[in-house]
């Protein structure tokens, strides 16, 4: 147990003037220090593979989508942001999404979809900005979610790295 010390004010402190100068000196010293304010839109935020931005769908090098519409991301989503309808395809993977919508207004960027995906198809990108004129425009469909896998590669490598266990 450590009892905190309650000090009584000294005469100098009671005068209040030293406190003013102390505060002012702190303010004055700031002028010669490095500025910490970021001029945000002009100076973008630093992003790297750890950044959990908006989820995106990975597209293979041959232009086909990786998703097999198993619905696991939909089940894992705590915000009910993902809607998937599957359909059959002639490709080897047999199933692909007919509709894959992510409501970006609902998405809380928790990354549970990425963690759940058994096909490395949905990944958190480093894209953070989100603005439009209507709510409908912010429900992203497959076409808007598609990103080449090369662009998402750093994140994919990171996810494999942190999940290396047992």
């Amino acid at each position: 147990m450590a009892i905190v010390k309650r000090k009584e004010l000294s005469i100098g402190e009671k005068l209040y003037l030293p406190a003013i100068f102390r505060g002012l000196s702190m303010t004055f010293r700031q002028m010669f220090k490095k500025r910490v304010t970021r001029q945000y839109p002009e100076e973008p935020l630093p992003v790297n593979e750890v950044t959990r931005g908006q989820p995106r769908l990975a597209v293979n090098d041959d232009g086909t989508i990786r998703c097999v519409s198993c619905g696991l991301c939909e089940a894992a989503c705590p915000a009910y942001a993902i809607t998937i309808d599957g359909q059959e395809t002639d490709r080897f993977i047999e199933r692909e999404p007919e509709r894959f919508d992510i409501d970006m207004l609902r998405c809380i960027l928790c990354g549970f979809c990425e963690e759940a995906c058994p096909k490395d198809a949905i990944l958190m990108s480093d894209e953070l900005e989100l603005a439009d004129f209507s709510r409908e425009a912010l429900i992203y469909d497959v076409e808007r979610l598609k990103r080449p896998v090369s662009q998402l590669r750093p994140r994919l490598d990171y996810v494999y790295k942190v999940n290396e266990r047992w």
Partner: protein
Amino acid sequence: MKSTTFDYRPGFADSDADDPLSGETIEVNMGPQHPATHGVLRLGMDLDGETMVRVDADVGYLHRGKEKTAESLGWAKFFPHTDRLDYVQPLINNIGYAMALEKLAGIEIPPRAEVVRVLLMEISRIAAHLIYLGTSSIDLGAVTMFFNTFKERENIYSILDAYTGHRMNNTYVRIGGLYADVDEKVEGMMREFLTQFPARVDEFEGLLTGNRIWYDRNRDVGVISPEEAMAWSLTGPILRGSGVEWDLRKNEPYCGYETYDFEIPVGTVGDCYDRYLVRVEEMRQSCKIALQALNRLKDTPGDVLAEDRRYILPPRTKVMSSMEELIAQFKIVTDLCLPKGEAYAGVESSKGELGFFAISDGTADPARLHIRAPGLMNVQAIPLIAEGRLLSDIVAIIGSLDFVMGEVDR
């Protein structure tokens, strides 16, 4: 100069027999959209002159039904919701909830996860106390403090950003451990922050502790006696400010806190000034614990996630290659059923005892999840300590009780 305590009982302070308005009260509403109420708290007050005759704290403006939501959301999917309880310290909330579920499921977390959890909890505690220091002092006019504490907190958020990928609402704790391990870069950032931080605390204390305005407005304001504090089930810095040595980290240790060397600061009088001193000292102690945890990191190798195939997602490479793990992945994501029973886990958050009481009926959803929010109890103390005081004291009292409405209303 002697610090003065007047007896501001109703009708006493201004008991001027000739004043025709003496004893007549006026009803004033403060909030819910008042900048000094730290969120959407409404105070209904009856004022007699400048004396508060009656103060009612009205909560519920930020009620989002978190406990009820949990009953239909499932165990794992509730983690992001715990972030949003006390949003200045999301990781402590995550850990408290995870601890309740681990108790329920009977999972032992690996030693490295415990060390990283302690590290994260103490860093979050520092961030939360910095917010207290900044907001309560700007309410009393100390603008320099606000900018300086927020600048310092920014460093913590940069660390958490580098570690979790988010600044706030991290959601990085899982049942059985943590999502990812702390890497060298984050470790270096933490070490750099923690070594320079005590000097910054001294600087903050130098600006406030001996400041005449801070002193006069906090000293002997909002006194809570130890008996009252216990009767109103107040916890955290408020209880300790009243002189009761009660800290879950010492009294009911979890995450291996009993192996760390730190002290519990307690106050003597129980006023706003004591609560301020306790929190400042707690920041130093947190820094000390976090440094110890940081030094332990290299001695405790291993995973940060327990190996339990019933409740924890299998490693990703195996999901991609083996059928068993793929099936486990599907089962755990879609239907994470915890065994029947009930469990309570309490953690010492920056506001007090944050408890999660989970009752499971064996299905994928909690039968009931109760959250013991320390902020709710702390808000209840407002009428107790504010009635009979001057109107200007309420700002100091609210600031020193340091609640976050997201947690109070939940």
